[in-house]
């Protein structure tokens, strides 16, 4: 394959992702408010919040923390670009794990009880979803004969009809990665709980804005991964990804934060169990 088109697509994706990610977060807040019987902020509120955070003065409790938060952003951006360049999915997920590690390192560097508490839980979250993502890539190989994003587009059939249980497992991983209830255990969504803001406690102002921006990239990356399950044609996959997003929001609103041991059990039991079941069925039936 020539690299011209992938590079154009990747550059466009990197430029557009903050817009899409921010709007998705706005939609989240609007819909969540409606589900709770509130009016909710305008759709563009995340951008105002972002601008306000950027303009605040910096407060830093550890130099290593600010270094790692930038690494978190840049590594996520790397994984994001690799995905849209059509690269190897396992490489994308490994780099994404490095990014997640950087977020935890930043919080661990701060010597604050709340940040460290959150960081350890962030690592438990990674322990929960990382096997699902890696196995999902293997499942995609089973169906397409390749580990690359590109090979999914080369395949002549959509993945979802063959990998339905894998898709469900990825939804579990998505819930954890989006830090939504019942999986918001590393940083509670509302700062007035016992965790304070967990892994984000020691970040404020521009650094918090950077984290928010990184979350937007992460969100778009995960949505794009969901869309991979139906790329013939692509718009079906995009619709599926949106549907999954709404499902996560709905679950977020009806579920409470649960214990990490429950999360580990659920994600390994349901997530890994479903993927293995799906692969075994595929091997037996086809």
């Amino acid at each position: 394959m020539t690299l011209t088109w992938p590079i154009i697509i990747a550059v466009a994706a990197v430029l557009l992702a903050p817009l899409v990610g921010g709007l998705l977060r706005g939609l989240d807040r609007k819909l969540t408010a409606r589900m709770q019987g509130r009016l909710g902020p305008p759709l563009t509120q995340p951008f105002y919040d972002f601008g306000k955070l950027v303009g605040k003065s910096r407060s830093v409790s550890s130099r290593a923390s600010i270094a790692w938060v930038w690494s978190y952003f840049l590594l996520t951006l790397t994984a994001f670009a690799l995905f849209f360049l059509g690269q190897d999915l396992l490489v994308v997920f490994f780099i994404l794990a490095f990014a997640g590690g950087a977020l935890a390192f930043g919080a661990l560097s701060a010597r604050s009880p709340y940040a460290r508490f959150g960081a350890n839980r962030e690592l438990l979250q990674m322990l929960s979803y990382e096997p699902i993502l890696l196995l999902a890539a293997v499942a995609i190989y089973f169906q397409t004969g390749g580990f690359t994003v590109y090979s999914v587009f080369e395949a002549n059939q959509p993945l979802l009809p063959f990998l339905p249980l894998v898709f469900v497992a990825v939804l579990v991983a998505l819930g954890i990665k989006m830090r939504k209830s019942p999986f918001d255990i590393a940083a509670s969504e509302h700062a007035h709980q016992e965790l304070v803001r967990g892994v984000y406690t020691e970040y404020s102002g521009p650094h918090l804005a950077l984290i928010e921006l990184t979350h937007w990239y992460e969100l778009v990356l995960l949505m794009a991964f969901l869309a991979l399950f139906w790329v013939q044609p692509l718009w079906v996959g995009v619709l599926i990804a949106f549907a999954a997003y709404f499902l996560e929001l709905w679950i977020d609103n009806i579920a409470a934060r649960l214990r990490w041991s429950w999360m580990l059990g659920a994600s390994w039991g349901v997530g890994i169990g479903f993927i293995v079941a799906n692969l075994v069925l595929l091997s037996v039936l086809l």
Partner: protein
Amino acid sequence: MSGELLVSLLVLLPVAVAVCCLALRNAAAQKVLLLPAMVLLMVAAAALALRVLPEGPFALTPAAVWDNIVAVLDYVILAYFLYIGVTSRNGLVLGLAVVLAVLLPVVQFGVLGGHVAVSPVFHIDALAIVMCLVISVVGSLIVLYATDYMPAHEAHLKLERTRQPQFFFWFVLFLGVMNGLVFANSLLWLFFFWEVTTLCCYHLIRHNLTDEARENALRALWMNLVGSVAMVAGIGLAYNNAGTISIQELVTGGSALVLLPLALFCLTGFTKAAQAPFQSWLLGAMVAPTPVSALLHSSTMVKAGVYLVLRLAPGYADTSLSLLVAIFGAFVFMVTSLLAIGQNISKRVLAYSTIANLGLIVCCAGINTDLAIAAGIALIIFHAVSKGMLFMAVGVAEQQIGSRDIEDLDGLAARRPVLTIAAVIGMLSMLFLPFGVAFAKWAAIEAAGAQAGWFIAVVTFLAVGSAATLVFWSKWLGRMLSGPVVETKEPKPFLAYGTILLLVSGAVGLSIFVTPLITVLIQPALSGMGYDQAFDVAGWHLRTTFGFFPPWALFLAVAAAVLLPALAARGYRKELDPVYLCGVNVDGPELWFTGIAGEPVQATTGGAYWTQLFGEARLTPLSNWSALVLLVALLAGVILR
């Protein structure tokens, strides 16, 4: 220089130097002897590589009298093991030594009929060269490190009479024996070298002569003797079933009759590589001075175990034995990675990580495709460099800080910046792409995924284990990086710090240049074993038929993502703010806040180990029994087929 001379030098130079060490009592004299000797050893290894890599395997058969010398030495060592068993009143050592004392003559004189000429006795191919380079380069650097470490170690123990001569004797001898082990093609010679590594290991673990050291040394001894018994039985069966005790002939013979001996040899490899349920000997080995751990974990001992499993892989390709080896290795990788999460002793975390990585290498041998074997060989190299260095760093930290507890390494960066940076890079190199160890993990998962059927179990274990490694490294790594500012001077002993920094640059450099490493070393090793090329290396990328890994491009991106922020943060000169403590901070001391009654309260933080889930009390019995069941299945599967 002729090939014969180089081979003799690589095996006999360490032996001669080891004997000289017995006479040296002071540190300066040791350095004067060891520095040139170790440099010479590295040069010899490089020279042999430069000869074998372009010209193909090098065969060597010493005069027949050497066969007899080796046979006699076998019995001398065995008699010594019996002596240890009797004097220490250790039933297991004694029992196994007795079994060996019966089995060895039965095999040697009954089955083999006295004398079997194997041609060649030494077969030095590219795989042997990879091992030889790892042993001679990483091993030598650890020896040099030890010349700085041991005087400080003894000063701390306040010994009346130095025990360094004995220490360096066994330590340096180990390198020569390991070289012999990887060169050997005759199973009898392999067995001889195998026994000497067990002997060296026993004495090194025992070195401090405390009760714990003696006990752990005996445990290492009996567990390794289990492997020796399996090996002797395997030699007898191999000759009985296939009529040969040449490794090359066994592996390329393609006879199903050799599967049982191969399975027994794999079992032998598992004991030496401390795979579950034999992991406790390696965990116990940390009572020894740290250079011993660095040596055992990186370039010698355990690597002999995985080398044997990998060396024999072509012999059991496409069999159920191969599948079971893969499942076993992947299982060990998973459980030991999970066990590492629950540990707060730094050396114990490193030990579990070693066992996990060895499990991954075993798993690669079992997956047994071009890509998997390439991943296994790459992992031997990268793991040796990174893990040797990490043990050395932890050893220095222990000497300077007086603790091996991860809780005490919190905020090490403020006290020992150079050491911390080195350790952090070492840990990153064990953990994340684009570094070599993670690259090998990537290749292993893709290779396992590309196999159908039961390999789903393998890939599942690998995925869970991979996530677990992320947790135990990260929660340790993250806490070292910032601490309260302390005005201290970091003592930097030249050879200790020099070797650590050399290995750190090795870990990074080899990872960046993984493509040439693969072309120059790993692909010849693959061809030598009868495998095809695993990668298309056009553009210095690594492309397989189903995956793609661009090392240098990733390094550019990751270096920018990690180094630029680190440099920028160093330049941040404004006063740091106190952390949020859910109360008004008290001015001055770190982590104090004003409590409800207006009194100052100190906040404390500590590590998370979640021992209720990942503790040894919970996981070890489970993993040992499961591993045992897998081993029984492995042997039964071969016997019953």
